[in-house]
């Protein structure tokens, strides 16, 4: 445990740091696994690379999850000189992230009838449509580096909610983001769109990182430390002439974080990136980036900025309301399935923010439950999207989904169920999750909480219209084209979709155990 640091130099730099290895072992496993993955990429023969990488990545994630569940739970502590905080929320979110990434990796590894991962280009560096690209495809090149990149990103995500100071948080932010920027640009089809997504994500992401850093600098000037606990304790004791630094600092840090969850008005990248990125990567981002970023938001909001929350609360409430309204209204007008899911994910981020703003333990557990439940559903959703094809490329235009229920009743049924879960119909996890974030907002959020919840349910009705329209399209409309087919997925995608859908149902009917887990894990260590 670090004492309150008053000097400008973190204590970690001055003395030997004690590390609780059991607490951080899951993180180390993933990082180590990623590095080994890079070596595999360098040395393994091309033919067996895909299989090797998939197996290795899954092994790493499972091992990390096992260690986390088996040993790290008993080692809740601040470690690495206070830079990493392994407490209940961290462990719950890390476990969620690992479980979700396992499913996401399964969908990324899908080959369909091809030789290597179907969603990714054979050669990311080749200009789209160039002879070089054709040559790379002929030579059977693969971008199996997607898997170590995923592991690196997961490591950053696991560190994100665990960060005990703003520098660690920034490092985590970059570690999780940089691999994602690359992964977004590696789509096999519609590569220009994919490149555009990658560039947009990178530029806006860099921009938001700058916001975050500037905010951190202001907070450092204010409190003389980047440590979250010190910032919190300074809030009440700082010299009054410094107060002008606090609020801008807090807001800028929050802007940096809210960019990652796609909250309005920092959302403009979301639809473009979700549309352009390889579909499994979109699912991975929608599930895991959100979970990690909400973990970081919870941590700063509840442990560092809670003393000053009356100053910045109104701004975040406004953002939450805007996010719900803009996300749900704009999803009405979408004609592309991936963009529609992107706007729906924006609306969902707004719902989760309502839970964050409750400032209560129930709000923490509700938020964590929501991101876990939503992640499971959204990975399955994007996996289904990747299976619907017309002439080889993904049929993401809504008109191509018409009449799907007639020719492919199982796939359409699964997707309809997923949509009902997004809409928050009871007996799906979408409903219990919504209840889990709305209830603390009404109970502890005061009048603003009630207003947010009322707006939230009205927006739910709007999004329900969107989802039901798709169900109508799939079931009650004549097919627009005979060429739309559903690829037969390998067991891997099948497992991911099945697990996602079954858990979506199970968390709607018997959410008790997971709610319990989230409830027990909702106490932050300061």
């Amino acid at each position, binding site marked *: 445990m670090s004492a309150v640091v008053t000097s400008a130099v973190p204590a970690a730099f001055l003395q030997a740091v004690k590390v609780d290895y059991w607490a951080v072992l899951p993180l180390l496993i993933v990082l180590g696994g990623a590095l080994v993955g890079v070596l595999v990429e360098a040395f393994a023969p091309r033919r067996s690379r895909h299989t090797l990488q998939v197996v290795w990545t899954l092994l790493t994630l499972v091992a990390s999850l096992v260690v986390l569940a088996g040993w790290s739970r008993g080692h809740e502590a601040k470690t690495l000189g206070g830079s990493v905080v392994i407490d209940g929320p961290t462990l719950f979110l890390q476990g969620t992230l690992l479980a979700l990434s396992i499913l996401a990796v399964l969908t990324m590894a899908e080959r369909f009838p091809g030789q290597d991962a179907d969603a990714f280009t054979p050669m990311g560096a080749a200009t789209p449509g160039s002879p070089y690209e054709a040559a790379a495809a002929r030579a059977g090149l693969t971008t199996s580096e997607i898997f170590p990149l995923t592991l690196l990103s997961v490591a950053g995500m696991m560190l994100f909610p665990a960060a005990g100071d703003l520098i660690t948080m920034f490092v985590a932010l970059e570690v999780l983001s940089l691999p994602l920027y690359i992964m977004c640009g590696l789509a096999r089809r519609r590569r220009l769109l994919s490149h555009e997504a990658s560039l947009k994500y990178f530029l806006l992401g860099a921009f938001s990182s700058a916001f975050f850093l500037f905010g951190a600098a202001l907070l450092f000037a204010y409190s003389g430390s980047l440590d979250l606990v010190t910032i919190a304790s300074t809030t009440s004791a700082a010299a009054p002439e410094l107060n002008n630094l606090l609020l801008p600092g807090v807001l800028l840090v929050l802007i940096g974080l809210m960019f990652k969850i796609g909250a309005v008005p920092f959302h403009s990248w979301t639809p473009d990136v979700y549309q352009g990125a390889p579909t499994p990567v979109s699912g991975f981002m929608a599930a895991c980036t959100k979970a990690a970023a909400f973990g970081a938001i919870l941590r700063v909001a509840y442990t560092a900025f809670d003393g000053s929350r009356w100053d910045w609360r109104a701004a975040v409430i406004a953002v939450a309301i805007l996010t719900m309204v803009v996300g749900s209204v704009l999803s009405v007008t979408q004609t592309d399935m991936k963009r529609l899911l992107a706007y729906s994910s924006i609306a969902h981020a707004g719902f989760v923010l309502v839970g964050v703003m409750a400032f209560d333990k129930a709000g923490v557990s509700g938020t964590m439950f929501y991101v876990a439940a939503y992640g499971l559903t959204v990975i399955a959703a994007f996996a289904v999207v990747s299976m619907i094809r017309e002439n080889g490329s993904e049929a993401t235009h809504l008109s191509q989904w018409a009449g799907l229920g007639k020719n492919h*009743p199982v796939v359409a049924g699964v997707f309809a169920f997923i949509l*009902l879960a997004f*809409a928050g*119909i*009871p*007996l799906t996890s979408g*409903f*219990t999750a919504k*209840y*889990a974030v*709305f*209830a603390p907002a*009404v*109970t502890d959020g005061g009048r603003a909480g*009630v207003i947010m*919840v*009322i707006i939230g*349910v*009205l927006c*739910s*009705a709007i999004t*329900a*219209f969107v989802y*039901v*329209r798709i169900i*109508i399209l799939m*079931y*009650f*409309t004549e097919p627009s084209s005979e060429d739309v087919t559903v690829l037969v997925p390998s067991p891997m995608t099948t497992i991911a979709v099945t697990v996602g859908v079954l858990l979506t149902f199970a968390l709607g009917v*018997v*959410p*008790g155990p997971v*709610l*319990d887990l989230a*409830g027990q894990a909702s106490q932050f260590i300061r």
Partner: protein
Amino acid sequence: MSSFPWLTTLLVVPLVGALIVVLLPKGSAGRAKHVALGVSLVTLVLGIAAATQYRRDAGTQFQLTERHEWIPQFGVSYALGVDGIALVLILMALVLTPICILAAWDDVPEGGTREKSYFALMLVLLAFMVGVFAATDVFFFYVLFEAMLIPVYFLIGSFGGERRQYAALKFLLFSLAGGLVMLVAVIALYHYGPGGSEGFLVEKLTGLTIPQTAERLMFVGFFLAFAVKAPMWPVHTWLPDAATEAKPATAVLLVGVLDKVGTYGMIRFCLQLFPEASKWATPVVIALAVVSVLYGALLAIGQTDMMRLIAFTSVSHFGFIVLGIFAMTSTGFAGSSLYMVNHGFSTAALFLFAGMFIIRRGSKQIPDFGGWQRITPVLAGVFLVAGLSALSLPGLSTFVSEFLVLVGTFQKYTLATVLAVLAIVLAALYVLLMYKRIATGPTPELPEPVSDLGIRERLVAAPLIAVLLVLGFAPNLALDVINPAVTATLHHVGVTDPTPLNAGSDK
């Protein structure tokens, strides 16, 4: 009292039946309707057996109770139980379902998977209908209330008429919007309740002291959802569309049973949980109810589409039910409870018999008919009986309930009652005009000869007419069960009947 979980059995049997129907192998897909009919009959028998366990003089509000923890973190229990009102409504649903399945026998002529899902959805719906009336946990009720929309949505959207998608979507959005507003009130209600792992039980939420504004807002949240469901003017517009586009059997379950959830919810939740706010809202609700009564009746007269006409009569009748509930006199209240049952059978008869006309003529338009009593005398006859029950002819069951509602309301709201009585005249108009246009006149010249009711259709008609007659001559069969529940609920609201003007005098 036995400890056998009667109500759970009533929930599980139809669900298992639905599963069996879905899993029927391809070769025997044609058996779907037989299985569905069998399952619904078994459920009916079980329901009657459960009803025999019910004691009129038991001291508790709910009987046949079951309670298990479900989501203790939210305070939610799996809690079932019935009082008199819920019991008769469940029995009504149980009786109507096999009749509807029988009436829907040839609704899906193409057979196969579609036929299987049609009848499976009906059985799923049956389970939800039992559950929603039997739930004694507010959250559990809400879950069923919302989840129920999905099978109905598919029943209308997949199997209805030409504009079925529009009708299904409209139905879903209206109900969902109302329900979501109710969700906010549900969350807030728990907050004001005792909390804990069983904090959503109705009995724990009864008799709370809630700040006035909060109580009123929560009342509005609940009432809005129920008003959409019931449906009351001005949020009724989904009903005519849904009723005309759905198959007659679906329309029966929708209007006859599901919409009762609205009025039942007003009794069970609005009145019992928010008594003060209910009294506060009474003037507005009574006004809306009277508007519904007259508006529904007037629009019914103007309809040319049979199904829409019947739907509008229902809007009018639901106005009567709400009127009786919010009059808050024991007579009006008992009348409304009985009205819910009677209306279920009366509307079922109208929809199903109208459906038999429609399938023979291939048109829903009244002007396409005329003189049909000459070619289908039995059908025209039973249709007349059903129509007379809709206009509350003495001797048929609806007369008793409508009379009780009017008497009960007159004790407190003279003007509202006088206005509502006008609807009786209007009812005579819309029923008799429809009958006249369909059944009387010269023998129609049709391209193909039509036959009168077959055996299956007679089996549909007979029990409906029988119930209308039996409850018309012996309403006490139902009233005796309903009355203790009425007294209990009014006790929770804390109102007493006004003293009759001549009380105390012997003459």
